[in-house]
């Protein structure tokens, strides 16, 4: 039920829709729940709807956090 997946917007369509992609898999999704969608944005996709954008900078911070913990 809580299945969701990060996808990239590759085309913005009229009517709050967009084409999203992950690793070559494409799907038309609804962007009615988020604002100001741009091609290139990553969003969390759930039951056909983008729930939220992914913030690339914050993502980077988490990765840095992971790496910072690596023992020398």
């Amino acid at each position, binding site marked *: 039920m809580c*299945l969701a*997946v990060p996808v990239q917007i590759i085309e913005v369509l009229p009517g709050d829709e967009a084409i999203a992609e*992950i*690793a*070559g*898999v*494409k*799907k*038309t999704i609804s962007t009615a729940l988020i604002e100001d969608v741009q091609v290139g944005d990553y969003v969390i*996709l759930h039951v056909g709807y983008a729930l939220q954008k992914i913030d690339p900078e914050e993502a980077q911070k988490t990765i840095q956090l992971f790496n910072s913990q690596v023992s020398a």
Partner: protein
Amino acid sequence: MQEKKKHYVRPLNIKNGKIEMNYGAGGKASAQLISELFAKYFNNEYLMQGDDGAYLPAAEGHIVMATDSHVVSPIFFSGGDIGSLSVHGTVNDVSVCGAKPLYLSAGFILEEGFPLADLEKIVKSMAEEAKKAGVYIVTGDTKVVEKGKGDGIYINTTGVGVVPKGIHLSGANCKPGDVIAVSGDIGDHGIAIMSQRANLGFETEIQSDSASLNSMTEALVKEIPSLRCMRDPTRGGLGTTLNELATQSKVGMKIEEAKIPVKEQVTAACEFLGLDPLFVANEGKLIAICGPEDAEKMLEIMRANPLGKNAQIIGTCVEDENCFVQMETPFGGTRMVDWLSGEQLPRIC
């Protein structure tokens, strides 16, 4: 297959015609369908005998017999169609038993209204794949059911093959220590089918892997003295097939997740759909198990075959009275790989 009095009958309107009930009634329309479509494409001396069964040269050694009905939806999909699938599916079941597939039967259940043009495409594709695999479609049957009692076309194929002397493979042969190989990327067929279901509405370039594996199985049978068994991980996928073999041989299995070849697109589609590639169907992949002494050679033979380029050793058989299949994750954790439970998506083969 019966010829009918030629000059009395207008040829089938293959371009625009549709299957009507009388094509399955056993009378003139049935005979016409046979001669203008099935016999035309399947054309071989055995089928042309036209009797109720095909009279076939003796087979030396043991014979193997396998059957599958095919109900896949959609009937045309990326990488194949229900016709090619119906040849591959049964050729592979015969082949994984260590046999050289020789003959196929073809039983069609057609729904009233099915386009003859689609039927021709399917029959053509069966004929081509049979030829590629070196098998003959020697006998057939056609039934027509009323609109609403079928889904266009269902095809049963049953295959007969002959086993070289001294060979007797079985899923019951595995022993602790035996090595498990898979011939390539898993999950392609299932994902290709699902991507073409209108209600799932996603797009991929993944093609079904549907293919006849008999060239690979013949080489393995010939070259691997310690070959225990082979199986094609179709419905239920790799995970279920391994469980079948483990249960049959009364062993456990330990596999490594990192070794299992999966295309990134397949993984991605599985993320979309909440599926595990381990349980997604394949129609052109082989699991083969042999003694540890032949492991490298087995992999070599698989990889030498164009259908086995991505073959991998994925694990070994172990002692386990519960016959569990366990998988080591890349994180060092271990989890069970159980039989497929419920269904992933229906009608994938």
